[in-house]
């Protein structure tokens, strides 16, 4: 007896493919952290015994001393942290070779140190903004990469972290 051959359609079901990839997608969606780290960037000086000490004329150094209570001694004058920006800006305008030296007490809270650095960075940012408006006529955030570099070269950030004193 001859059996009639049944032709079967052989196919892998792909309808659940979307579901599977959805699952994977959800997993990566959940584990991804989009938030970016923000902060104040700085480059530390190399260790002392290797680096040659660079001599800077004393009139080109602006000392910023901060004590534990948050009082600021800026160039032998007593001020407070929120005023640093204005004073530093004026001094930088008067002398563009100025190096800012930040020195803090061991007992100074970190919060005040960050506020001080923020003020200093702020005055550099303001100066760059001014330079940008003067040179290219547009604010800093509208410059091209090359123009931005030019402004950065023109107003370089010179922040020096003072060497800690040996206590013992």
């Amino acid at each position, binding site marked *: 007896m001859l059996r009639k051959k049944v032709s079967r359609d052989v196919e892998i079901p792909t309808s659940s493919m979307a579901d599977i990839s959805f699952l994977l997608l959800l997993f990566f969606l959940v584990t991804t952290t*989009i938030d*970016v*780290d*923000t902060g104040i*960037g*700085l480059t530390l000086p*190399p260790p002392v015994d290797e680096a040659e000490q660079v001599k800077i004329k004393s009139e080109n150094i602006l000392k910023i001393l901060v004590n534990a209570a948050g009082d600021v001694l800026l160039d032998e004058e007593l001020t407070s942290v929120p005023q640093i920006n204005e004073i530093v800006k004026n001094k930088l305008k008067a002398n563009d070779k100025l190096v800012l030296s930040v020195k803090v007490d061991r007992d100074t809270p*970190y919060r005040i140190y*960050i506020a001080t650095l923020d003020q200093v960075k702020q005055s550099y940012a303001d100066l760059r903004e001014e330079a940008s408006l003067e040179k290219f006529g547009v604010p800093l955030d509208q410059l091209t990469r090359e123009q931005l570099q030019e402004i950065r070269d023109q107003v370089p950030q010179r922040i020096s972290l003072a060497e800690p004193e040996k206590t013992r």
Partner: protein
Amino acid sequence: MSKFKKKQAATKQNIPTASLPDIIFMLLIFFMVSTVLREFDVKVKYTLPSAVQIEKIDNKRLTSYIWVGNDGRVQIDDNLVLIPEIQTIAGIKRQQVPNVIMSLRIDEGSKMGIVTDIQQQLRKGDALRINYSALQSL
């Protein structure tokens, strides 16, 4: 028999779903590429200070974190460490990733003494690029 017969299209109306997996796969691949899986179990409590002039760290793969809690404990990666050990760890990190950025996540109430000590250790370990982690203040 009514004169007005409802007009109906002769064709079946189906949204083609054949390309759905492809679309999902594209999304999937985007998230797979942008995900950095390494997450740390932070053992110290800290509140970050806030500042105006902050910048973004673009590359998460370059960053290494140092946490300093409000009780003065220091954590690197998943371990609590002592200050003198930081130099060695920084040296190792620097070998693994030559342009490593050390992101310092320090409690805003910490004393500067401990921060200075960590910085001295980082200098000896030759990890000189640092970033004081801070939030955007309004």
